């Protein structure tokens, strides 16, 4: 049996997936969820092989939900938003169904899944390392058992931590499995500067730039912390600050 979960915030949209799926005997639908949080819970509980996933959903999007999974199942996206198609294929989704979709189109997606086999290898890593264009404006991450949504506006600075990034906010420090490069591209370049290989700082948090030994500098933050500035980071910082 193929364990399946449907996640979409519109009941009628889940019902048509159920209707189309009813002809696939090997499919076993274990749960129908109406938001990403319920989806996460169900995925944890049932460990499905395949999920049908809407993009625009309450609180967190389908993409953000996927990011929180360490070992995501195979995904078929179902959405009315065709602008997400590229992003969906970057996450190595099996297929991307544009609403409304025909039965034929749906069956094609299912064939694709059945042919490629149970799980697509490497989905997990690829999702977490996505370097997508277009600002996302917020970070969704797992903080112990809670899901935390951090708007970009609340970031004080970012610190590289192996394959992860430490996100420093007023509420404390959070770990996200994305790269510094991703954030450097995604954050507003007028506000955030990569002052060092391991640091991105929000310029409005800076209170002082001090010279530190020969040719190197540190910035003091409003929170009292000090961040090192590299040789290549200093001119970037000066440029953004306009000095």
């Amino acid at each position, binding site marked *: 049996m193929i364990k399946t979960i449907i996640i979409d*915030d519109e009941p*009628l949209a889940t019902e048509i997936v159920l209707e189309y799926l009813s002809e696939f005997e090997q499919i076993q639908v274990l749960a129908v969820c109406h938001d990403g*949080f319920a989806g996460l819970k169900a995925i944890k509980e049932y460990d499905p092989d395949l999920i049908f996933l809407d993009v625009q959903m309450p609180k967190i999007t389908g993409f953000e939900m996927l990011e929180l999974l360490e070992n995501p199942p195979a995904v078929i996206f179902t959405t*009315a938003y065709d602008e997400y198609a590229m992003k969906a294929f970057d996450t190595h989704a099996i297929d991307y169904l544009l609403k*409304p979709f025909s039965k034929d189109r749906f069956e094609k997606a299912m064939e694709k899944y059945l042919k490629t086999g149970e799980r697509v290898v490497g989905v997990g890593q690829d999702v977490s390392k996505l370097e997508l264009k277009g600002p996302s404006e917020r970070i969704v991450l797992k903080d112990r058992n809670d899901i935390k949504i951090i708007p970009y506006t609340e970031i004080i600075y970012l610190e590289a931590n192996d394959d992860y990034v430490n996100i420093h906010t007023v509420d404390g420090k959070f770990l996200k499995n994305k790269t510094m490069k991703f954030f450097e591209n995604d954050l507003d370049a007028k506000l955030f500067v990569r002052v060092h290989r391991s640091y991105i700082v929000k310029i409005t948090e800076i209170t002082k730039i001090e010279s530190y030994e020969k040719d190197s500098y540190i910035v003091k933050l409003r929170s009292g912390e000090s961040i090192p500035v590299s040789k290549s980071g200093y001119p970037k910082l000066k440029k953004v600050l306009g000095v």
Partner: protein
Amino acid sequence: MISATLKFNKANWLKAILITLAWVMGVAYLVHTFEPGLGMAALDVGFHTFLLILGYFFLENIFRYYTPQDRQFLIFLSFPLVVSVIIFYVGKYSIELVLIHQQSYLDFVKEIQIVKLFVIFLMVLGYALLLLFHSRLETQIKMLERAEQIDKLVKEAELYQLRQQLQPHFLFNSLNSISSLVKRKPDEAREMVLQLSEFLRKTIRKENQKWISVIEEIEYLQLFVGIEKVRFGHRLEVDFQFDENCKSLLLPQLLVQPLLENAVKHGLYGVLGAVLIKVSFECHEEYLFIKITNPFDPSAGQASGESFGQQAIRRRLFLLFGRNDLFQTQNHAEVFKVELKIPQNYDQNNYH
């Protein structure tokens, strides 16, 4: 134009000086042919040219602050007249003072002084006309630019409206609902098709420019809500309220619906569970007040600042009423509120 010469680069200065010199020498030679004495003629003409340039400078500064209107031709004429008379007398007495011993030259000058005054007047008048023409042209260009800007804004607003009318996501999701209903609940599917058709027909109706009554607007909004409730009925509740005495007041079309759609979207995607949207129409004094509230979660990282849709509404209100204070948004205690004010003492057939 002389002020413009102040901004000239060196090459242009050189040209101006050369032209002035050529002018002085030419006229001096002309005078010399009637009364020998090229030096005196050159001095005379040179000095008068200098006075003329001063006069031009003076005129230019007057017309910079004062542009005579069509019917003030006499006033316009008086400036060059006064300037040329001053140039004439200053020139005359200065030359008499300097060339006091050249009686024959002075006699010659005295003989032609009427012609001289006339020539000076013509020169000054010509320049004044040029200045007037230039300033008119400038005003016209400025007016044209402003008209173009207004035109652009109107077009943008129309474009936005058009996009708003098409609402691809709303449409596709609604069609998906119909597709889902059609086999299992054909009656509901048909109901939804009818609702959607009526909503679309009202959205693209031709007399969009006309204002409609509060009651008509509410009917239209309820069509929209009806469709959204088919999609989100398990979560969505929209509460309409209006004062009895506001029922027949008028408002521009397609102003409230985008805001309601925004409220529904932010409510549904901003929080989990049930979403209550409140829409109210009230009237006080000369205004119709429309308020829409939706729940939101401040911690969810919704983009701050005005959305494109809100900016478009604000611009449209500005185009309609020339005011910027008719649209307000408020974030308070997990409730987002927008408020529109529609002035009632306004020409309600004038769209822009």
